[in-house]
């Protein structure tokens, strides 16, 4: 195999996931320039390891490298401490079945984006991978390096927190509207 064909082969496999890679990095680090640098670093690293890739889920493979590159960066530059999540815990007091059923479909994009950005990164990443990239629990488990059961419990807690954050914001807006009308 010549060197030329190696880079072409890698590009064929890897560049189709560039959008998913960029979006994940952007959601993890919150900043477009850092996200661009980190995705580029991750792709160069993936290319170096390409000899160790023997087919399989290329998207999960790439997103794993992107995710790890971002985590390393967060630990170095944002003082991120991982293993801070106790997966045996539940979100006390955050239940979906509150008496005033929220019409979440009415939440605007800005509001949802902000709420998601406020989530701890361990919850944010599973929500992003599930809802935006449509990945299965199994794929998320590989990328985030957690058991499948933990994927479900983190999704559950992430959604509970998101729901609570949105309820708070929408409640405030409703009050503002009410007082404006009064």
């Amino acid at each position: 195999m010549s060197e030329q064909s190696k880079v072409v082969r890698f590009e064929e496999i890897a560049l189709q996931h560039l959008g998913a890679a960029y979006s994940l990095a952007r959601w993890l680090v919150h900043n477009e320039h850092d996200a661009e640098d980190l995705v580029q670093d991750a792709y160069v690293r993936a290319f170096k390891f390409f000899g160790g890739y023997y087919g399989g889920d290329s998207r999960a493979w790439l997103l794993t490298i992107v995710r790890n590159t971002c985590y390393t960066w967060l630990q170095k530059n944002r003082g991120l401490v991982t293993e801070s999540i106790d997966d045996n815990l539940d979100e006390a007091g955050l239940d979906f079945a509150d008496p005033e059923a929220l019409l979440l479909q009415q939440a605007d994009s800005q509001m949802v984006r902000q709420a998601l950005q406020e989530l701890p990164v361990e919850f944010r990443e599973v929500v992003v991978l599930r809802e935006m990239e449509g990945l299965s629990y199994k794929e998320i488990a590989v990328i985030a390096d957690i058991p499948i059961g933990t994927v479900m419990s983190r999704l559950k807690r992430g959604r509970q927190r998101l729901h609570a954050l949105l309820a708070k914001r929408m409640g405030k807006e409703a009050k503002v509207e009410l007082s404006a009308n009064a």
Partner: protein
Amino acid sequence: MNCQQTRELVHGYVDGELDLVKSLEIEEHLKSCDACAQTYEQIRGLRSSLTNNALRFEPPSGFERRVRSALRKQDDASAKPSFLRWRWLPAGAALMSALLVLIVVAGMLRRPSSSDVVAQEIVSSHVRSMMASHLLDVESSDQHTVKPWFEGKLDFSPPVKDLKAQGFPLNGGRLDYIGNRPVAVLVYKHGQHPINLFVWPSDGTPMTNQQASVHQGFNLIRWSNEGMSYWVVSDLNLAELQQFVQLLQGQNQAQVGR
């Protein structure tokens, strides 16, 4: 399925990750429980607000080109054109030969001296003698039994002393093979500690000064006297072992003086 189980598993149900049996059980429960049905609707609402709001970030235009060029650059770096490699060849060769010299010199420096080799053999012999219960070929505390035993087995006659009165009783002796020659080993005991005294004719200058060293946790003392080389090895502490050596030498010197 009860409400608590449903609230645990309803996320897997929404995500289509449950098996058929569990899915049917959840559906059954949702039909009959308003609270859980509401939770389910809220999760669905949350999911659609996450998917409908174009929350996925799209890479900026030109980003793919940027990544491509970074990859090509990496590819070039890992596969340098051959003329570049030739340029580095003399430097590489020089480095290699410098390394080689370094390795050879280091090897010479680290090569054990012959006395280290002997010390190692003696410690091994000492350890082996206790492991295989082959401490003694001739078992006697009588120096007049032990000394003649070596005759005909060795081309020299080792001096044999009993130091029982001083707390180091002679237990016997055996033959061993150290430094490519047969040697005499006299076995003493101090309390529970066996002491092996190796004796053979010295081949060089007499070394009246003791040299103590530690190998694998055993104390060793060597000296030479009256044309004989002595090595003593034991797990005994150094002070007592030195006392033993002094007793041996004292007796020898007393003999010489006589």
